[in-house]
């Protein structure tokens, strides 16, 4: 018996997008779904800005002497690329867009615990972004996104103070989002939605939120101190006034290392949703995936000084942080094994979200494994501050986090907009992105081992071939990003109507219409089923026999 032929779907008459009209109804909304779209617009804007800087960087590096700009400008390009991408794109992206949209629906609630605070956090993000844009356009920023002192607090002649203020303010946006998510998951779950029935995306957001609330305040105070040092010539981090630049690094990395887990955990949550859906079976090792998210969040707070192995820190400290850094790799490995095992004896379709998920596994695998090289003390001496590090973190942040974000956007696009995107074009874009990415960043591992330092506006000529390869890859990567922006936008108007559950998938969000009504559920759902339980969901109209599907024979 095959599935019911797809009924011709209709858009619901009233939904969150058309429930009220006018700019005030958007700018003063407290609907988590509209706020998610406000964030979507803003993070995409900053993605363009960071992307523009990246483009200029790669073009500049085509030539050993630098092709495009002066060293002063180059230093501003990589700094502003980092600041824009990390603080205003990567950190908010999945939590503030997908998390905001989905979290309440996934747990059966009408909204987050504090909807007005949710809106406030978007405005705080805009204000922080405003300060940073002001810095970019009045002299730029050339300290590196890491703001190391005393370069940033004493010697730099760029617009450091507004940038530092902007990042400081933006931190509160993160903190409030994290606070909202944690409280929501604790107190707003629908009856029957126990912790171990939660979708893994929710577990991932919860773990991320722990890092938001415990880590962000520390960078806030650190940047405040650095800013005050610059403005009032104080001496916390300036050795000429009795201060210690290494103290800055400890305080900075105490947040900034967990921050990288803020960037990857939500993407892992997305993958944990996509794979069961497109393999049509439960995730392998649910409690291990849930637990590993928490483990990463916790252990991630204890590894920060692996960024400081060559600062002259004590050997004992280095040994401790190296060991802990290896420990934090294990939960990530557990996830990868579990995702792969989920594919075994699945019923796998090649839809675009699945392509993104598998691309994620491949790229995150390389990124994560290369972390093992850097955690290794003896190797890190050689690899620290080289292009190896750049390749490592781009594999994780772009190959991992951005693919997770774009894959998630595709996966939930029908729910968010009620429309389907053009599948063929989407698959082409996914493959383009994957190939372009590898060509851009794999050569950088080799550049790094050869010794090419990072943050260099010019380089010895023997490094040119690999740099040119990298730039060629970047042009393909750019295409891979532009395509979805174009066809996703196109689909909002012209896409095929999706219906409530096009894939179909098992989460609560797929029981609502697409797009959902403002209050998400007419009646509070009562949850009696396990997550990803394709075997016990007759409402999905799939072909489930009592015994495992005979289609795979007796393997």
């Amino acid at each position: 018996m095959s599935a019911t032929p797809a009924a011709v779907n209709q858009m619901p008459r009233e939904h969150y997008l058309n429930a009220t009209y006018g700019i005030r109804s958007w700018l003063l909304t407290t609907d988590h779904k509209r706020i998610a779209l406000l964030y979507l617009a803003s993070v995409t804007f900053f993605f363009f800005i960071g992307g523009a800087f990246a483009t200029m960087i790669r073009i500049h590096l085509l030539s050993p002497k630098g092709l495009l700009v002066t060293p002063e400008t180059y230093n501003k390009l990589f700094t502003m690329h980092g600041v824009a991408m990390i603080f205003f794109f990567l950190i908010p992206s999945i939590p503030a867009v997908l998390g905001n949209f989905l979290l309440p629906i996934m747990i059966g609630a009408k909204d987050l615990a504090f909807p007005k605070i949710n809106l406030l956090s978007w405005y705080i993000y805009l204000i922080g972004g405003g300060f940073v844009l002001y810095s970019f356009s009045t002299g730029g920023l050339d300290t590196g996104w890491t703001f190391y002192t005393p370069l940033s607090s004493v010697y730099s002649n760029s617009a450091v103070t507004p940038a530092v203020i902007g990042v400081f303010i933006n931190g509160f946006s993160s903190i409030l989002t994290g606070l909202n998510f944690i409280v929501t998951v604790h107190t707003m779950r629908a009856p029957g939605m126990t912790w171990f029935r939660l979708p893994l995306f929710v577990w991932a957001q919860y773990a991320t939120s722990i890092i938001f609330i415990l880590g962000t305040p520390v960078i806030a105070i650190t940047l405040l101190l650095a800013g005050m040092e610059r403005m009032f010539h104080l001496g916390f981090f300036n050795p000429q006034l009795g201060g210690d630049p290494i103290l800055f690094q400890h305080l900075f990395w105490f947040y900034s290392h967990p921050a990288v887990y803020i960037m990857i955990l939500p993407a892992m949550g997305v993958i944990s949703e996509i794979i069961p859906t497109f393999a049509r079976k439960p995730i392998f090792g649910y409690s291990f995936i849930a637990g590993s998210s928490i483990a990463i969040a916790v252990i991630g707070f204890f590894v920060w000084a692996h960024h400081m192995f060559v600062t002259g820190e004590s050997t004992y400290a280095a040994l401790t942080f190296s060991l802990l850094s290896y420990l934090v790799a294990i939960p990530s490995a557990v996830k990868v094994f579990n995702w792969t095992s989920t594919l075994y004896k699945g019923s796998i379709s090649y839809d675009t979200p699945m392509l993104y998920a598998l691309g994620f596994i491949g790229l995150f695998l390389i990124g994560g494994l290369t972390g093992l090289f850097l955690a290794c003390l003896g190797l890190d001496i050689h690899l620290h501050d080289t292009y190896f590090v750049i390749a490592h973190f781009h594999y994780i942040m772009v190959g991992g986090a951005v693919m997770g974000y774009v894959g998630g956007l595709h996966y939930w696009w029908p729910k968010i907009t009620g429309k389907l995107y053009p599948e063929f074009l989407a698959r082409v874009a996914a493959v383009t992105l994957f190939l372009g990415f590898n060509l851009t960043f794999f050569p950088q591992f080799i550049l790094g081992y050869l010794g090419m330092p990072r943050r260099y506006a010019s380089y010895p000529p023997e490094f040119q071939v690999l740099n040119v390869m990298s730039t060629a890859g970047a042009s393909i990567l750019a295409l891979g990003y532009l395509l979805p922006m174009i066809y996703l936008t196109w689909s909002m108007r012209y896409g095929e109507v999706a219906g409530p559950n096009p894939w179909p998938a098992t989460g609560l969000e797929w029981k609502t219409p697409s797009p959902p009504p403002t209050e998400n559920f007419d009646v509070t759902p009562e949850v009696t089923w396990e997550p990803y339980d394709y075997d016990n969901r007759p409402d999905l109209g799939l072909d489930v026999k009592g015994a495992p599907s005979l289609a795979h024979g007796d393997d």
Partner: protein
Amino acid sequence: MHRTGELYEQYRTLEQQRETASLGMWIFLSTEVLFFGGLFMTYTINRSTYPDIFGEASRSINLALGAINTVVLIASSLTMALSVWASQVGKTKLLTIFLIATLVLGSVFLGIKGVEYHEKYVEHHIPGWNFNFEPGADAATNAHAQLFFSLYFGMTGLHALHMIVGAGLLLWLIKESLRGRFTPEYNTPVENIGLYWHFVDIVWIFLFPLLYLIDRH
């Protein structure tokens, strides 16, 4: 505007609403612990690097005023706790009185702080503002003393900022209490702002010994 007993849209029951507000405040306070924590860590590290200068600088701030402020603040926590109790047993008049007492004590604290800051201004102990700890001393002594005072003003200033916000919240509570808004069924704002006030008090209880008492003999 939300009146007594009214349920916000996103909640299913009043109990859920109350629990949520309370958990929200606790989580917010935990972020504040980390926020102040970074400052405390910086202070501790600098103090152990320059014990003598920090000791000398610490002895130059007004212990008497600091001690009075500590008593004032603890008293204000008492009146705050009493106001929460009053709201729980429905004694609205007492509630308003205790809230006003808390506000008054908080304002006394801020006033005394202002006096202390003025003293520091007169003695040229404000970094960045004609700072001169020990006229004639070498540059290192002044630089290290400036570190102490930067942290002194940073920590007490951040604390005072939180007190001012607290004072604003108290004003709002008093206004609402006069309107009879708080009952034993609904006193969530009183409880949660009480939590906030106690937290600000606890921060001071750590600040005071660290800044004022480290090297008195």
